[in-house]
C-alpha cells in the first residue's frame, strides 16, 4: 500500500529500498547520509522482506560486497558521501567491467579531500564521466525532492538491470537532510531464485550440469576479446543515450533566459524563475534528471530560442561543459556556482542572471 510520510531524503532512500524489493545494502557511515543506514537498521528489513543490511569495515569493503551480490543477480546497493564514493571508485570500475547492475547513492558534500559536510555538487565529473579507470559510464539520476529520492531507487535498479550497468543516485546534503511530504510506493516482493535465473542469465547461481560456467570478472588478457567486450558495452551505452534521457522543462515555452540546473540547485532556480517572472523577465529552467545520459538534444533546441543560458551549480563549473557541448557555441552559456558547501539563495541567483541581461 502507498503511504504518505514526512521524511528526510536519506530516510526516503532507505524506506524505498526496502519497498522496491532490494536484496542487500552494504555501507559505511559518513555525514550527510548516515540516516540511510540508520533507517535501514531501525527498520530491520531482514526480519520482514529478508533484505540484508550490513555495516562494512570500510567503503572499499562495501563496494566489493555490492560486487558479490550483484554478480549473483541480486538487487544490491551502497551509499556514501563524496570522500567515501572516491574510495569506491575502483570497485565501481570493476562492476562496470564485469557488466553488473548495482545502485550507488552519493549524497554529496563539499570537497576536495575531506572537505566539509555541507551540500555540494562537485562530484558531477566523477559521476558522469566514469570516475574510476577505463571506458565506462554510470546511469546517473539527480533527484531534486525527497519524493524523487524515494522514486529513483526503484528506477535506478530497473535501469541498472535493464542495461547491466551500475546506476548512481547523485544527491547532496540539502536533499538528503531536508524533510518533505513523500508518497512511498507499495511493497514489491524481492525477486525469487527462479525469477533471477530467468531474468539474469549471467547471474552466478551455482553451476547446473545442464549449462556452461558463468564468470563475473572484468579481467580478459586477450586484447581482441577485451575490445569486443568494450564495443558491446559502448553499444549498450548508445542505447541508454537514445532511450533513457530524462529532464524537466519548467516555464520554458516562451523563455528568453534559461537556467540549467540539477538536483538542489534546480529547486533554488525554480524560485528564481518565479521571482524573475514576477518582474516580467521571461526566465525558464531546464532540469536534467539523468545527468548521464545528458539531455543534449533537448538543450540544443533551446539554443535558437533563448538569449542566454545560466548554469547554476554547487561547484566551479562542471555540468556547464556538457551544456556548452550541447549548444555548440550557438548561444552564450555562463556559469554561476558556489563551492565548499555554500548554497546560494534564489535572490542571489536572480542578481547573477540580471548581470548578464
Amino acid at each position: 500500500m502507498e503511504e504518505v510520510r514526512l521524511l528526510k531524503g536519506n530516510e526516503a532512500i532507505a524506506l524505498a529500498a526496502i519497498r522496491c524489493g532490494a536484496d542487500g545494502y552494504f555501507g559505511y557511515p559518513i555525514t550527510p547520509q548516515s540516516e540511510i543506514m540508520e533507517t535501514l537498521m531501525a527498520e530491520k528489513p531482514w526480519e520482514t522482506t529478508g533484505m540484508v543490511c550490513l555495516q562494512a569495515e570500510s567503503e572499499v569493503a562495501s563496494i566489493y560486497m555490492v560486487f558479490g551480490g550483484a554478480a549473483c543477480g541480486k538487487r544490491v546497493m551502497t551509499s556514501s558521501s563524496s570522500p567515501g564514493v572516491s574510495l569506491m571508485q575502483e570497485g565501481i570500475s570493476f562492476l562496470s567491467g564485469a557488466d553488473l547492475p548495482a545502485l550507488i547513492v552519493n549524497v554529496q558534500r563539499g570537497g576536495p579531500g575531506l572537505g566539509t559536510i555541507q551540500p555540494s555538487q562537485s562530484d558531477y565529473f566523477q559521476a558522469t564521466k566514469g570516475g574510476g579507470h577505463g571506458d565506462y559510464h554510470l546511469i546517473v539520476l539527480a533527484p531534486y525532492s525527497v519524493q524523487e529520492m524515494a522514486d529513483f531507487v526503484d528506477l535506478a535498479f530497473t535501469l541498472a538491470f535493464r542495461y547491466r550497468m551500475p546506476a548512481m543516485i547523485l544527491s547532496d546534503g540539502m536533499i538528503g537532510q531536508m524533510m518533505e511530504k513523500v508518497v512511498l510506493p507499495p511493497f514489491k516482493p524481492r525477486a525469487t531464485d527462479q525469477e533471477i535465473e530467468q531474468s539474469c542469465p549471467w547471474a552466478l547461481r551455482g553451476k547446473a550440469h545442464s549449462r556452461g560456467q558463468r564468470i563475473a570478472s572484468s579481467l580478459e588478457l586477450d586484447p581482441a576479446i577485451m575490445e569486443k567486450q568494450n564495443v558491446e558495452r559502448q553499444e549498450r551505452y548508445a542505447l541508454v543515450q537514445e532511450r533513457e534521457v530524462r529532464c524537466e522543462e519548467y516555464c520554458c515555452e516562451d523563455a528568453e533566459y534559461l537556467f540549467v540546473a540539477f538536483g538542489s540547485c534546480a529547486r533554488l532556480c525554480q524560485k528564481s524563475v518565479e521571482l524573475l517572472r514576477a518582474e516580467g523577465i521571461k526566465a525558464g529552467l531546464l532540469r536534467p534528471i539523468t545527468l548521464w545520459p545528458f539531455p543534449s538534444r533537448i538543450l540544443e533546441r533551446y539554443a535558437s530560442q533563448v538569449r542566454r543560458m545560466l548554469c547554476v551549480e554547487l561547484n566551479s563549473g562542471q555540468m556547464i561543459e556538457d551544456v556548452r557541448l550541447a549548444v555548440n557555441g550557438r548561444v552564450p552559456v555562463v556559469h554561476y556556482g558556489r563551492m565548499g558547501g555554500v548554497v546560494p539563495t534564489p535572490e542571489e541567483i536572480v542578481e547573477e542572471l540580471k548581470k548578464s541581461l
Partner: protein
Amino acid sequence: MKEELIIAGFGGQGVLSMGKMLAYSALMDGKEVTWMPAYGPEQRGGTANVTVIVSEDRISSPVLNYYDTAIILNQQSLEKFEPLIKPGGTLIYDPNGITHAPKRTDITIYAIEAMKAATETENIKSFNMIVLGGYLKVKPIVKVESVLKALRKTLPERHQDLIPVNEAGLRKGMEIIRKA
C-alpha cells in the same frame, strides 16, 4: 496560503523538533511542506535553525533569503534574522537571554516568556511546545488538533504519556504570547 518561517535558537532548545512538529501537522492538514535544517557542527552547543515552508501549492526553494515569520530564541539568532523578515512580517521572540531587544518598526513583534513559563511547569522540555502554541495563536496555519495528532503519531510508545504535558504547553503558549 504560504508561510515561510525560520525558527532559530540554541542547539538543545527543541528548535528542529518544533519545526518538525509544525511540518508534520501541516502535512496532516493536507498541505505541502519543506523542513530544511542548518545541519552540521554548528548544532552542537552552538546555534541551530530550521526553515519551514507550509503552502497550498508546490514549494520551490527550501532555502530562503527572507521570511514571513521568524521565531527567535537567542541573541545571535535575533541579530542574524531580524533584518531578514519581510516588511509586514512577524517576529516572535523569548526575551530570556535577549540583551538587545528587536528594533524594527515595519514588522509585528511578539514576545513570549516561554523559558520562564517552562521552568514553572513540571516539565521544562515543554519549552518548545509553549513557543509553538504562541506562534499558532498569532499565525493559525495549522489546527491545534493537528499538532496533537502529530504528537500522538510521532512520539514513541514510551513517551506517549508526555502528550498532556505538551498539550498544556501549547495552551500555555497561546495564553502568554503578547505584542511587544
